[in-house]
């Protein structure tokens, strides 16, 4: 970036994402979307593409759009292909002199629309090399339909399709590592980030993703007070705990080079992240200590591998 990050300057830009949308109070998605779009240069236009999701049904409910830029939603599983189509049209019309100026293409999908049903479309778009950014706002379940498990849901998390009962103990599998799948596409830029502090990490990575030519991917942890079952005002704290426990490491892969962008001064135990959230409550029942141990072992193993990869 040409200039250092300055929160005061950034928040004074005209907004790209407006109030009046129907997301839940305290929703992480609204914070993520306005944070990503804030990284666009003032003078540049964008087309925002959206997968069917909480975000979509809440931000373009006829006749109310929360976007200052052009926006298209078509279906749940095809937002990356949809973005491909807009970008293709831009290239064609620019070549034919029917459109001028720079336009950026940014897609938002939830984890259901990205890790699961939209993965094929996303893989195809990344493979073809469209000049676009795909942003997954990852709230770790199908929240739009009422908190069902996705392949992004963490191990043991309670959802409406992985309930806790006498036999069931929440989700049986670990969270799919989508960012690594995207890295394996050898795209120019892929990163994990979250809404934190002064938003420097999210902003810097958004800027890089938007202004790096080619297909770029951002995976943004997006806490969901309803699905994760925590008080709405705790969002910043929950996001902070996710990164300080290394449950959600912040890193980027630029042209194949892995780089950690944040190393906690003190790596906190995983249970610090789990405890405030109702979806993990059963893990703290007497006799279920093994769950927390397993969750810790999994995070430790992934973190160690990430340290190796990033040469820390």
């Amino acid at each position, binding site marked *: 970036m040409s200039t250092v990050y300055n929160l005061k300057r950034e928040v004074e830009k005209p907004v790209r994402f407006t109030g*009046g949308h129907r997301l839940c109070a305290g929703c992480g998605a609204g914070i993520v979307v306005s944070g990503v779009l804030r990284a666009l240069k003032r003078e540049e236009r964008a087309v925002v593409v959206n997968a069917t999701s909480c975000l979509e049904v809440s931000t373009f409910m006829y006749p109310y759009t929360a976007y200052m830029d052009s926006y298209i939603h078509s279906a749940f599983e095809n937002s990356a292909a949809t973005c491909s189509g807009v970008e293709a049209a831009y290239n064609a019309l620019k070549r034919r002199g029917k459109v001028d100026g720079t336009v950026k293409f940014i897609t938002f999908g939830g984890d259901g629309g990205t890790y699961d049903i939209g993965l094929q479309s996303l893989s195809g778009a990344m493979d073809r090399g469209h000049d676009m950014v795909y942003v997954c706002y990852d709230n770790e379940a199908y929240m739009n339909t009422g908190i069902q498990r996705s392949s992004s849901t963490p191990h043991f998390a309670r959802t409406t399709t992985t309930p806790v009962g006498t036999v069931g103990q929440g989700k049986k599998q670990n969270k799919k590592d989508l960012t690594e799948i995207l890295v394996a596409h050898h795209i120019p830029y892929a990163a994990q980030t979250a809404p934190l502090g002064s938003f420097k990490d999210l902003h810097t990575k958004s800027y890089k993703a938007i202004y790096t030519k080619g297909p770029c991917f951002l995976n943004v942890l997006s806490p969901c007070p309803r699905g994760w079952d925590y008080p709405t*005002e705790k969002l910043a704290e929950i996001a902070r705990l996710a990164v300080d426990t290394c449950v959600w490491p912040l890193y980027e892969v630029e042209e194949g080079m892995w780089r950690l962008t944040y190393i906690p001064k003190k790596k906190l135990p995983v249970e610090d992240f789990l405890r405030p959230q109702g979806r993990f409550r059963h893990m703290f029942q007497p006799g279920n200590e093994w769950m927390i141990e397993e969750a810790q072992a999994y995070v430790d193993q992934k973190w160690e591998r990430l340290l190796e990869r990033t040469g820390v």
Partner: protein
Amino acid sequence: MIHAKDINERTPWQDLTPGGEIYEPGTARLFNTGTWRTNTPVFHEAACKHCMLCVPFCPDIAIPVQDGKRLDFDYMHCKGCGICENVCPFQAITMVSGGAPNE
């Protein structure tokens, strides 16, 4: 051109936009989500250092900024989640019970 402000639940089909398109930016601003609040943030201007840490954390884009200063809440859109109170290092925001702006 058909404008969002002229579209409501009494508009006949002939006056709606084909395909449900909207040709203007940010028409959601016309919609009042302030009525959703059960708790309301109160801004203490004197305590505010205008560090702006609350602004990007507002999911409802309800903290306007002008000339390097954050202004009072946009109560038409604030849903009262309380994140801002939690991220403010200077206790310049406090949540009060009830949906009405405390003015």
